[in-house]
């Protein structure tokens, strides 16, 4: 999917998608359990490094992605920075109550987001979407019915987006000719969604008929793309585990935050 912006591939491109998903879930749990902002700081740097080195995409896209990730990360914790509890007040204005504790906590939440997002971006650019479903069928024994429904639906995504764009254009034309009540607010929203849904349901039904006519069923089948577990999976897990442990120790040496507990 990203061939055009890939510069090189790494062993992570050959790691089984299931391993990546399981690693992602473990990382999520770890991140929720880490309360030391210094540990998390080093961990998010580790993930940033992995993304920079291992994703293999062009620098300008990496830069763009990092900028967006950091920004959304900061924005998502604004509620905590502005309104979190704390004793050492730095700034107070009306409801806004910024304290040292709330800033640390807010940044801690931001870093949780960053760690997961950098890791997520690494996965996105090193995984073929269809391989995710192929490995789900082969290694996780997910029924083909589900896996192929997902793969087939992905093909429809651009069609849905195009329909949405065209529909909005069509409404722009008619908007000046009719009363606002037909096209604005809830009514406008409902009719937009209903048209898109009904078009898509029709298409999904036709596709199901087409798939069954091609002999698709939930029974035995062979697989064009073989996915398997290999040494790469061990390396990948090791990479994440090393990051988790090493960042704990380096977090004791270099401490940008004065506290070891964000709570």
């Amino acid at each position, binding site marked *: 999917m990203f061939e055009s912006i890939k510069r090189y591939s790494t062993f992570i491109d050959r790691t089984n998608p299931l391993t990546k998903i399981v690693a*992602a*879930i473990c*990382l*999520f749990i770890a991140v*929720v359990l880490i309360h030391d902002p210094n540990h998390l700081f080093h961990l998010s740097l580790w993930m940033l490094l992995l993304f920079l080195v291992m994703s293999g995409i062009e620098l300008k896209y990496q830069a763009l992605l990092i900028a967006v990730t950091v920004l959304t990360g900061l*924005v998502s*914790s*604004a*509620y*905590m*920075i*502005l*309104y*979190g*509890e704390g004793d050492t007040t730095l700034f107070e204005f009306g*409801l806004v*109550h910024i304290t040292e*504790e709330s800033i640390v*906590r807010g940044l*801690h*939440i931001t870093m*949780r987001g960053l760690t*997961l*997002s950098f890791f*997520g*971006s690494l996965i*996105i650019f090193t995984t073929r979407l269809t391989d995710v479903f192929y490995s789900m069928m082969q290694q996780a024994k997910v029924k083909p*019915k*589900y896996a192929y*429904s*997902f793969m*087939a*639906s*992905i093909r*429809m*995504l651009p069609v*849905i*987006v195009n329909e*949405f764009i065209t529909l909005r254009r069509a409404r722009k034309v008619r908007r000046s000719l009719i009363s606002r009540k037909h096209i604005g607010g809830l009514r406008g929203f*409902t*009719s*937009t*969604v*209903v048209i*898109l*849904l*009904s078009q*898509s*349901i*029709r*298409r*999904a*039904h036709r*596709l*199901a*008929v087409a*798939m069954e006519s091609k002999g*698709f069923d939930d029974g035995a089948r062979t697989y064009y793309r073989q996915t398997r577990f290999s040494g790469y999976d061990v390396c990948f897990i090791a990479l994440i585990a090393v990051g988790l442990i090493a960042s704990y120790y380096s977090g004791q040496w270099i401490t940008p935050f004065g506290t070891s507990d*964000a*709570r």
Partner: protein
Amino acid sequence: MKKRKALTLTDVLVTVVVSLVFAVIYSVWGAFYTALKPLGIHLNELVYGMWFIAPVVVYLIIRKPGVALIAEFAAASAETIVLLQFDVMLIIYGLIQGLACELVFAIVRYKSTALMVAVSAGTAAALSTLPLDWYYGYLAHLETWNLILMAGFRILSGAVVAGWLAHILYRALLETGVLKLLGQYKEIEKEA
């Protein structure tokens, strides 16, 4: 009866595609609400219900066990595909919200299309992830008024957007006749 309960390929495809449609709409309109986030007063929570409107709509049109869960999973993976963000959190949250919906639907034995069922499912889904947020977002350490605002907006959104709005969309879909493809003749007659 037994045949009706098993998910067919059409059921699964319709479920996934409907979720994709909502994901597309959400990523266009949702962008506006993300812009409200820096205020920190959780206005973005008001559209949070859009996240689990798909399972409720899909349940109303198919009414079989499992579709709500698949719909939530699809909505979360659509985010991955549309916005190029693989967000583990979204997928985990999606699965929890899907399970919460399934629970409500199981209680009515996958039969009722009443408004109350839709509203309950929406509310259940909204509530289901609060415990996780509690730990992830340190909600215990938030000024009380702000916490109440967040939870209130979210539950309101679950009930209104995922429940009430989903029901309106279902009724409007019945009128278009497209659900005949899924064998809903009786429901369409009743609506007419």
